[in-house]
């Protein structure tokens, strides 16, 4: 039994996948030798905390003849956003009677999979966007003020309710159906999404932490803002070691850059907002609409200092504050003591946030405290309102 004669490799359908998507993993085993392997066991390891096996099996027991080829596959569902290894592959070869066996780990058989945040929220918005003609539009399409703008945006089919003066008669005659012209009147702005990546954001159930919600909200905001032709940049920070900056950009490609960027970030370190903002203003000064997503669990003084560092640059700042107790209660069966404790903590947290609000109220900064149920709608709503008010133009 010469295991070296076996060639085993893994074929991934895709190396980048959304959290709520699936990935097809194929394992190919080839016997390059002239002898058969009477008993062969191939196992492709994956971390069950990070992936869920939804179809097929990640191992096989079989035999392989000389110059034979075997393929088996399985489907995994990523559980958590991030960049994770898949593998290694292990081969166990036994003789017919199982007296002698040899196990080998296939060298270089670890593949990395980048798991993006779930696409679910964006999909919902896209579906709503596609129902625009039914007046169910919610944000994804550019909310143009038709007729007021002067910049030509595009053409589309006429739908009931469109103004007649927008009909392009030439195009309508050519296509034998009513076509209207669309104009845009908005100015593009730069949206900076600043996310607190300190370890306090990792509280709660592993798949639904404040940080995961923050990433989802950031992704949704990016998608909507990019669709509206705004530039979007991302900055995540906790302490000195954990500061990541993605400069603002536009277009569909940039959306995937943002996805790649946020997929790799893990919540770790303490929140050093002052140092974080120092770094941010060194990298970026242009006037912009800043969404700062944080649980605000730092001392009030530090938060004030950090935010004040942004003020001289004339940014429009919106603080999205995931209210910690609402995210961190994931156990249903709480005892009376636990309930009382939870009530006390939430009261205390509320007092803290009110004090932060008090501290920065003269800066004209809005703090939007959100829970897991309304975070996405609040973030989008705030963005839409900011755009309507012409902030950060």
């Amino acid at each position, binding site marked *: 039994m010469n295991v070296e004669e076996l060639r085993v490799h893994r074929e991934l359908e895709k190396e980048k996948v959304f959290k709520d998507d699936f990935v097809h993993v194929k394992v190919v085993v080839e016997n390059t030798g002239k002898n058969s392997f009477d008993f062969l066991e191939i196992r492709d390891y994956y971390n069950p905390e990070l992936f869920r096996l939804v179809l097929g099996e990640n191992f096989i027991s079989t035999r392989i*003849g000389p110059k034979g080829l075997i393929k088996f596959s399985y489907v995994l569902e990523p559980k958590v956003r991030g960049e994770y290894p898949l593998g290694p592959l292990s081969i166990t070869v036994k003789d017919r*009677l199982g007296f002698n066996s040899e196990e080998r780990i296939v060298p270089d058989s670890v593949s990395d999979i980048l798991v993006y945040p779930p696409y679910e929220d964006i999909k919902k918005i896209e579906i709503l966007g596609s129902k625009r003609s039914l007046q169910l539009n919610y944000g994804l399409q550019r909310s143009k003020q038709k007729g007021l703008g002067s910049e030509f945006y595009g053409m589309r089919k006429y739908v009931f309710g469109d103004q007649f003066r927008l009909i392009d008669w030439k195009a309508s005659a050519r296509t034998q159906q009513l076509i209207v012209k669309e104009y845009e009147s908005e100015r593009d702005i730069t949206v900076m999404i600043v996310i607190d990546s300190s370890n306090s954001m990792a509280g709660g159930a592993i798949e639904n932490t404040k940080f995961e919600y923050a990433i989802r909200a950031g992704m949704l905001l990016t998608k909507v803002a990019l669709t509206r032709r705004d530039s979007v940049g991302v900055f995540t920070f906790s302490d000195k070691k954990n500061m990541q900056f993605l400069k603002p950009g536009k277009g569909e490609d940039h959306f995937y850059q943002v996805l790649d960027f946020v997929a790799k970030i893990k919540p770790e370190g303490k929140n050093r907002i002052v140092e974080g903002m120092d770094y941010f203003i060194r990298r970026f000064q242009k006037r912009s609409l800043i969404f700062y997503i944080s649980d605000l669990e730092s001392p009030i003084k530090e938060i004030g200092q950090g935010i004040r560092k942004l003020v001289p640059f004339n940014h429009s700042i919106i603080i999205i504050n995931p209210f910690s107790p609402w995210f961190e209660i994931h156990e*249903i069966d709480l005892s009376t003591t636990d309930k009382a404790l939870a009530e006390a903590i939430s009261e205390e947290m509320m007092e803290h946030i009110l004090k932060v609000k008090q501290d920065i109220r003269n800066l004209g900064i809005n703090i939007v405290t959100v829970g897991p149920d309304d975070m996405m709608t609040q973030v989008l709503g705030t963005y839409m309102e900011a755009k309507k008010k012409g902030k950060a133009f």
Partner: protein
Amino acid sequence: MVRYYLKILKIINALIFVWLILVFLSIFDFNEVLFTSDGEFALFSFIDSIKNIFTFIIFAGAYIIAIGCAFIATTVFLPFINRDFMFSFIDGFFKNFLNLWFTFPDGTTPDLNQIPDLILNEISIFFGDFYLILFQLLFVISIIYAIRTFLKTNPKHDLIAVGALVLMIIVPLIFSGFNELLDLFHVSIEYLEDLPNPLDPSLNSIPIDNFFLFLASPVILLAIISYLYIELAFQINYTETVTRPSLERSDRLEIQLEILKSESHYITANVEKIKEEAKSRMEELEIGEKTTISKFFAKTSEKFSYIKEMIEKRKLEEEEKKLVTAASKTRRLGRYVERLYREDIEAQDTLTARSSAPRAQSLALSTFLNILIRLVVLIIISFIIIHPKWFLEDVFNLPPAITESVVMFSPEIILLLLLPIMLIFPIVSKIVSFIKHRNLIIRLQQEGRIKEILTSVGDYVKKEDIKEKEAKEEVKAEEAVT
């Protein structure tokens, strides 16, 4: 196809077992162990001997207790009771009245002093019968395990089936050998010499000069068939072990995919229905509006327990979420699989691993070749071991003074070849294992990253090992600092 192949193999093995039994019965006289020397059925005689032993024990026990009581009573009440009268009364009572409750072997009630001899006699009958019944039991065990292994593959059962038959040959040989050993010291145990020997006398004379006669002799034939049976049993086990996972996986996955295909089409309606139901329940319980952040922060008109509301909401959501998640996942997976099949034409085969199941033809060929090679090697080695003369003359070129000596005809000479041949396999195996292990360690050292990766995967390396390693490293670091 593989399933049929497996069934055919099992039928062949069952036929081999029948052949084995026939050959076995040709050298084993079953009548010898079925009946006692008195012509009584051994099982009945065995039961009788047990019954007689207990009869004597109980009778003697009662007798001794009665005598003991009489002795105590006459000692205490000496002036009033005559001791001789009491003893003769008890003797008369036991022999004339109580004996009616017992059935003694020869119909007469024994005296108390005769009973130990009678018990010993019955015990010797008991062991004699037990010896005979042992063969019957072994034969029944052999048949039962052969049937069991036919119904459910398990080489252990095959080993027991053959082992029981082999034991039926070995046991008389052991006693016969022991008797011969005792003869050397001019000692004889009558009981052992009286034990019946059910083995055919031809067993002692294996024709070793002629290879074909050697093969045709019943003992060698029995050994070869036994080996063939065991070998085929292991081949069946191998075939099942190597094919069953693939077949089961294939069946299981095909069913799963079929269900997924049918379920995912009409699950959308179910998802909407579940959501609607959950929404109406939330409205009924007036949960949802209250649990907004603004309400909580405002704390104005009505005081409400935020945690209580949250938990109520979560409970409802949890139920809904489970159903919706399961339904939506099924739907998404169904769509995904449909797309996968369109984009990757071999996906269905790889998911079910249908293509990776071993083929019946290749299995049959390899099984046949394996059995043939091993059988031929086994026969040749057996012949060499049993008949070392040719080997010693032609391979080792030993002088006639040795090869023609009387020692050559002694059984001990067999050990001369048997031991090296027996030891060659484990020694070679150990050497191969050692070399492979060393090579593996060298390779793993070269691929130092593997362990780190395995650690991160967490499924392969024991966490305790890692903790221990980390603890050792910490200690080392501390020592270095101090």
